[in-house]
């Protein structure tokens, strides 16, 4: 297992790092995490990726995390000790469980799940993944994308750069211990989703979603919500879908579209959601809790590194204090790498696989 990081956005340096891992006989596969701030042209990036002889998978993220620091430029390469098998699903609409079955996960290991964070029907993909692999593996991953939350090509593989795609890579022999937490608290009673389509909320309690949402926020904050201030306020007032005995699943509203509210991740009609709000300390506490939960499941087993998938909205929300969250993950002597994601993927403990928002997922890898 080997981590190469450089803050430079230089493609040549990236190519050199790739070359080093390619040449490292102890490395079986390469996970690539690139910050979107590199602005690498797809046309320039693609040949480098295609030139890789070892299995290569990864994504372009809003930012990468390396040893307690967030970087919006550079490259972060994670060399896996064993050969890894991956499956590129492009586009997501064509996904079938039969495609997933092609991936051999008979041995113990970790399934890295990287997905275009702005792709539609991510919930359906999660269902299919869970239906296929169940709890035989541990899941760890997140949504790729850019800092500006616009659609870009963001999934990396030996085939090049893809969008509206997902990539599942099974790292055989790499055991992981997962901790998930977000720290958001409900500030509303349950609201019934009476009409929705994927991540688009259309009506809540039989009223336009925008009206219901804005009314609650008006009551809670005294602020009228409109298209202009929505991007500023909404990230601090996400939706939460209740689950029993565990963290709510947070859905991040990111845009108004008429009377509809667009969210990251699906919110099925018929479900009940709460409007959530987070306090900085709660979020920071959640980061610690996530690390502790991961550590708790690992027990005395010493990890070889710690992979963190932290939601970009948390970074935006915590802003300057985000580095405290990153610090909260840190464990002495354990290398940390990760990325800011548009949605996080994990199964919390031993239960259902989820696509989270505004959540931090910590995986201690053996």
């Amino acid at each position, binding site marked *: 297992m080997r981590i190469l990081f450089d803050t430079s956005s230089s493609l040549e340096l990236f190519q050199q790092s790739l070359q080093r891992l390619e040449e490292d006989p102890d490395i079986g596969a390469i996970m690539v995490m690139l910050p979107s701030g590199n602005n690498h042209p797809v046309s320039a990036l693609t040949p480098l990726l295609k030139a890789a002889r070892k299995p290569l998978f990864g994504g372009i993220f809003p930012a990468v995390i390396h040893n307690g620091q967030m970087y919006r430029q550079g490259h972060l390469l994670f060399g896996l000790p064993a050969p890894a098998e991956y499956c590129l699903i492009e586009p997501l609409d064509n996904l079938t*469980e039969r495609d997933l079955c092609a991936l051999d996960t008979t041995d113990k290991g970790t399934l890295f799940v990287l997905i275009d964070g702005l792709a539609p029907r991510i919930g359906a993909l999660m*269902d299919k993944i*869970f*239906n*296929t*692999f*169940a*709890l035989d593996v541990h899941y760890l991953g997140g949504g790729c994308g850019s800092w500006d939350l616009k659609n870009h090509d963001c999934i990396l593989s030996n085939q090049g750069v893809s969008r509206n795609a997902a990539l599942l890579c099974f790292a055989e022999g790499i055991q992981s211990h997962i901790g998930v937490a977000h720290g958001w608290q*409900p500030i509303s*009673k*349950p609201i*019934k989703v009476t009409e929705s389509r994927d991540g688009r909320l259309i009506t809540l309690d039989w009223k336009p979603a925008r009206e219901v949402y804005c009314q609650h926020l008006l009551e809670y904050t005294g602020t009228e919500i409109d298209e202009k201030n929505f991007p500023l306020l909404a990230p601090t007032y996400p939706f939460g*879908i*209740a*689950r*029993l*005995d*565990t963290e*709510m699943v947070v859905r991040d509203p990111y845009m108004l579209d008429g009377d509809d509210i667009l969210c990251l991740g699906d919110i*099925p009609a*018929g*479900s*009940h959601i709460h409007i959530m709000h987070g306090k900085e300390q709660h979020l920071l506490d959640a980061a610690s809790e996530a690390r502790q939960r991961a550590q708790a499941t690992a027990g005395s087993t010493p990890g070889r590194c710690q992979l963190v998938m932290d939601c970009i909205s948390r970074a935006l929300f915590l802003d300057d204090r985000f580095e405290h969250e990153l610090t909260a993950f840190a464990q002495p002597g354990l290398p940390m790498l990760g990325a800011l994601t548009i949605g996080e993927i994990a199964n*919390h*403990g*031993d*239960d*259902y696989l*989820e696509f989270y928002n505004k959540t931090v997922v910590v995986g201690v890898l053996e």
Partner: protein
Amino acid sequence: MNNDRLYELVILHELSMAIGSSLDQQDMLNACLPLMLRRLGGRAITLFEQHDNGDILEPAFHLPRHAQTDGQLQTARKLIKQKHPPWLVCRTGHYWSHAWQVPSFGVLVLLRGRQLEESMCHEIGQIAGKLGMALLGCHQYAQLQAVQTQLAREADLHRETLLAIGDAVITTDTEGRIQEANPAAEQLLGNPRKHLIGHPLHEILHLYSVYIGMDAAAIRNAEPIDISRNTDGTACLQRPDQSIITVQFNIQDITASSGELMGRVMVLRDISDLHALEQEVAWRATHDVLTGLPNRSLLSERLGWLLAQADRHEKLLAVALVDLDEFKPVNDHLGHAAGDKLLCAAAQRMQEALRASDTLARLGGDEFVIILDDLDNINHAEKIFDRLIEQLSQPFEIEGQEVRISASLGYTLYPLLEETDADTLLRHADKAMYQAKLAGRNCYRLFDVREQQQRLAMHQHGEVIMQALLNQEFHLHYQPKVDMRAGRILGFEGLARWHHPERGVLLPAHFLPWMQSKELASMLGCFAIGEACRQLVRWHQAGRDWTLSINIAPAHLLSPDFLEQLDAILERHPDLPPECLEFEILESAAISDIEAATRVIEACHRRGISVALDDFGVGYASLAYLKNLPVDRLKIDRSFVQDMLNDRGDRILIESMITLARLFGQTPIAEGVETPEQGVLLMRLGCDLAQGFGIARPMPAEQIDDWSAQWETPELWRLWCDTPWKLDDLPLLAAQHDHLHWIQQVLQVAEGESLTLPHDELADHHCCRLGKWYDSYGRQHYGHLPAFQALYPVHVAVHQAGSEIVRLTENGQMAQAKHQCARLLGLKDQVLHHLTELERQVAQHLAADSKLSDSLSPSKSKAS
């Protein structure tokens, strides 16, 4: 309420609301169970379906799809065993299994990392109950939907089927009003659908029996078929445009499973083309295509039927076979097309000559069969045949040319003497037709059933005789032939006898009639020749110079291989003196083919064999023929000899025949000589050779020596042979014969038979032949002789006794009559004695006169 409880209620509500989200069972499970798994934070969820028998469960839905469900199945089974509460939680390895009963369905099992609170389990149990009801609803809805789908499909199917069916299908309600009619029905009935629906079927559809035919006029007067009941069949259908088609139809009730009558369905199919084709095929199968007449098949059927009718009504029926004479030349010279036209024309004329009820059929070629039934008598049939033959003999005009033909017709009648059938009648008619051909054509002949029977018997007997010949059951018996004047045995005639193993020795009358075939005649002839040869060789070796004659049948004599067969036999007997062998051939055989017969006779002569013409006088042969026939001997037929003493005509004929034989240089020999008197008369007429029972009956070869040793010339012959007696003395010569015949007739009267003698010949001794001679020529020439005088009183007494016997018998005095018979027999002996004495004295007297005459006139020939 704390948040956890709130969340619980939210989740429960959410789950509760998900139930019933769909009416499809799988859709509902897809909506509910993943949500339940996700919201309840489970790692796996399975819904087991419980079978009707209770225990065995199968997963109806489970997540993840590929997860093992064995552990959950165990939990589900545990829950089934416990009656209350309707849920349970148990530890399964590292996880907790939660199970809830899903009423009417099975068990829901959730695998979870942490145990759910009891209250939550209870509330999820409520949801599971709701889920069960919803699934049941889904199931029932699915069933309902399936039924609806099936019904819709069936309706579609029925509609499409109805449209696709080529047959017309019409349904009616129970009142008979048309409810549905497919396009084929519209087309068939010639009515658009709008004119059909709602109208009573019986007003639209009129079916008539096909036996009425396709005639619109006939249909107008006919009663339509009743279509108000279940029926089927073939019928004529008249359409609105008055056209008539043939349909096959079937009408059936439509009955619900409850038995309620719902209406009726009628299916019609236009089979006009098929019907026409069937009729055409049927017609061709039973008719001659050229003439349109019935063919052999239909003839056979009709003849069988007519024979049965004839039996039933005891009527006469005639079956005739007609063959056109001189038809082949027409075919050959004018071509087959002309021949066909002639056949049609001839058939037409025959039809015209027959009655409407008669049957005319063509067998093929130029052969026709006629059946005349319901005849009064044979004349009735012959009148029709006369008319038919006459019409066919009239000239035909074929392709501009006059053609003349005639017809030969043979017919037979039914009933016959014996039981018969149609084929036999046709065969008889064919044979009769052949006879008509032989009779010169252009005529008709009736089959003679008796002749047929005789032929059959001939054939059957012939077979038996042939076998008998092969079995060597035939032998020759030998009848002597003598020279009466010389008192010498000349030889014998070999006569075939059948030593039948059961019936004994059979005379030729028992087998000759059945030996008409050449083959049998040849067999018997060869046998006789061979046997004769052997016998002659034996006699020759014994120093006998006797001749031996045998009869050769005409068929054998004239057969091409006769001489070859003869030579083969002669070759086997090199010691045979051929001059001793003689063939006797019938006069009729000789004249049937006189040239051939002459060739054979001459061939026999070349081999040293003589030939006699047998039964001479009965063949009515022309003298011109006879004079050229090179035979050696003429045998005067016995029929002339038998009555020669009484019948002057026979006597004259015999004398003529003897004269003829002398003229042609042939030796006459008389056969059938039974009395010495006949022999005397024959010698007086110039025939010295004779054979007959009066000399000897035919005898086996082994008796010949004894017979020849003891045979003596009758005294009468010796007495008269050299006496030149006059024929006026014939009554004396015949007196013994006459007297014995007279005595026999009288005695028969005494035995109860009627009298055949003329009364004057009975009572008056002057009226019998002897009496007349006695009173005239006898008294004049021999009245001085003592024997002549002695005869008179006895002759008178005989007549008196005879008259008395007759009288007594007529009076019923039988005892006295018998007594008189004894007296008569005594008188008979006296008469015979006196006659013998008288004959002797007359002969001496005549001999003396002759010597005196010879001495006075030396030129007078004895023979003359």
